[in-house]
């Protein structure tokens, strides 16, 4: 598979048709692994990085799950291609900024990506649309076991998998869910939720991880600690936290409808109007409008099937995807015109909002 054909194929996240992804858009689990006896990527010399890259690359591409996937060095990728991979959550910003001796292997269905020589020698990630923590964990566990057949991982019985940063020690696992929480944002309850989630040992971040903002009311919730608990225990604990956030979001939606449905429908209706007729839309504004449409789908204002349209546009309205679709590099101002044009055409044939249905409540 080539990078060009990968980009032309919709990502794992852009074809979620089931309503399993109503509040949890995506789940992902990543494992940090390092080769025994080798310096970590940040400390390795260029020649060592190259040889580690080769060893990892041949092991990863040989794994059954990665058959006919894409294997590419970061240096071989153009800026736009890297940006698209970041927007699809297939590589990190850190990897896209690294120079010599880094690479990525991506499965054909774009559900699995293995970054090589990012912060650790290997960052093995599986992501799926919807709330599927257990399934995602078992897929990543299986790939990790397959790699273990040919690679000697740095491991000690008491500290577990050894990682460049001690915050990842032990399981080396970070499990996360991307959640759409518009009612908690509208109701100004997110701060409270973040605090409570932090106390439970979980972290809340924006859409693109550390330091990114939560545009579109999309948040990533993940485990903070990796040592002292088994993978299954961490996943069980995270699942519990996610369940309770889902409940809080549903309650917040019910409260908004009860207290002032007119105001809520006004927001959704206006979002629809702007998406259909706007001419200048920044990435951030587009995300927030799409988020309201998605909330509308959940409330029954738009048909269920339209959820996949908003989820696709969440990704396609990002700068990299937009520039790729328009085949060129554009200034931010010009991009905002193009984005609005793109959204106008998407929403020209979107179903008209029906606010009578929504009396039935949420979902």
């Amino acid at each position, binding site marked *: 598979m080539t990078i060009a054909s990968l980009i032309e194929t919709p990502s794992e996240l852009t074809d979620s048709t089931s309503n399993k992804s109503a509040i949890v858009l995506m789940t992902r689990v990543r494992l940090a692994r390092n080769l025994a006896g080798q310096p970590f990527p940040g400390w390795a010399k260029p020649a060592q990085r190259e040889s580690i890259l080769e060893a990892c690359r041949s092991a990863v591409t040989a794994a059954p799950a990665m058959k006919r996937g894409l294997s590419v060095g970061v240096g071989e990728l153009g800026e736009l291609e890297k940006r698209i991979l970041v927007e699809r959550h297939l590589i990190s910003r850190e990897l896209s900024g690294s120079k010599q001796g880094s690479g990525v292997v991506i499965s054909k269905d774009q559900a699995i990506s293995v970054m090589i020589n990012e912060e650790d020698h290997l960052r093995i990630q599986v992501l799926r649309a919807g709330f599927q923590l257990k399934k995602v964990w078992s897929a990543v*566990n299986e790939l990790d076991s397959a790699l273990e057949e040919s690679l000697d991982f740095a491991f000690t019985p008491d500290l577990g998998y050894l990682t460049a940063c001690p915050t990842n020690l032990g399981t080396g696992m970070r499990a996360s869910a991307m959640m759409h929480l518009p009612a908690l944002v509208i109701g100004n309850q997110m701060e409270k939720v973040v605090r409570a989630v932090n106390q439970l040992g979980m972290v809340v971040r924006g859409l693109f991880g550390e330091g990114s903002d939560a545009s579109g009311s999309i948040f990533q919730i993940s485990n903070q600690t990796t040592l002292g608990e088994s993978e299954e225990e961490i996943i069980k604990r995270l699942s519990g936290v996610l369940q309770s956030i889902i409940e809080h979001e549903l309650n917040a939606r019910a409260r908004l409808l009860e207290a002032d449905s007119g105001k809520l429908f006004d927001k959704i209706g206006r979002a629809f109007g702007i998406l259909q007729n706007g001419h200048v839309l920044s990435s951030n504004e587009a995300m927030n409008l799409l988020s309201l449409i998605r909330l509308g789908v959940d409330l029954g204002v738009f048909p269920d099937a339209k959820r996949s349209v908003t989820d696709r546009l969440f990704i396609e309205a990002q700068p990299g995807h937009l520039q790729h679709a328009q085949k060129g590099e554009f200034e931010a101002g010009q991009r905002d015109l193009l984005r609005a044009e793109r959204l106008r055409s998407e929403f020209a044939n979107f179903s008209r909002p029906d606010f009578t249905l929504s009396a039935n409540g949420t979902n």
Partner: protein
Amino acid sequence: MANPLKCDLCSKPATVHLTQILDNKVHKVDLCESCAQEKGVTDPSGFSLADLLLKASLNTDPAAGGIRCEQCGFSPADFKKQGRFGCPACYTAFKGILDPMLDGMHKGTVHSGKVPHRAMERKTLYDRLTKLEGDLSEAIKAERYEDAARCRDEINQVRQAAEQKPAR
């Protein structure tokens, strides 16, 4: 994920982060509030980062100060700068620095998750072979030929066992 940075002078949590460019070199320093006050960081005219960096390097824990990782040459100062280790062996070399840090960082201090059994098996076999080969050459040197023969037989057995379970 980034660590909470510690003050370069007294290892309390750092809240003041300073970057200065001197002679085209970037110098970074992290300080807690009281050290920042004391060193006059808030007064840009009367403050030299180079001076501070020197003092910080002299001020490191004497027990940890001189240690370097034998495998990769990493030093505690490198860790302070980067928040990451140099290689897996650093975890043994800098145990004294790591242990107090781990206490507050994780749910526990002992791993209870997945174990890479295949790799561990390979390592056990490898360690056993290395030991037997050492015993063998010692026995030959001391002209204990009966022991040497026993070692040789055992080496062959271990090798055979390893081949029956190839590492693919």
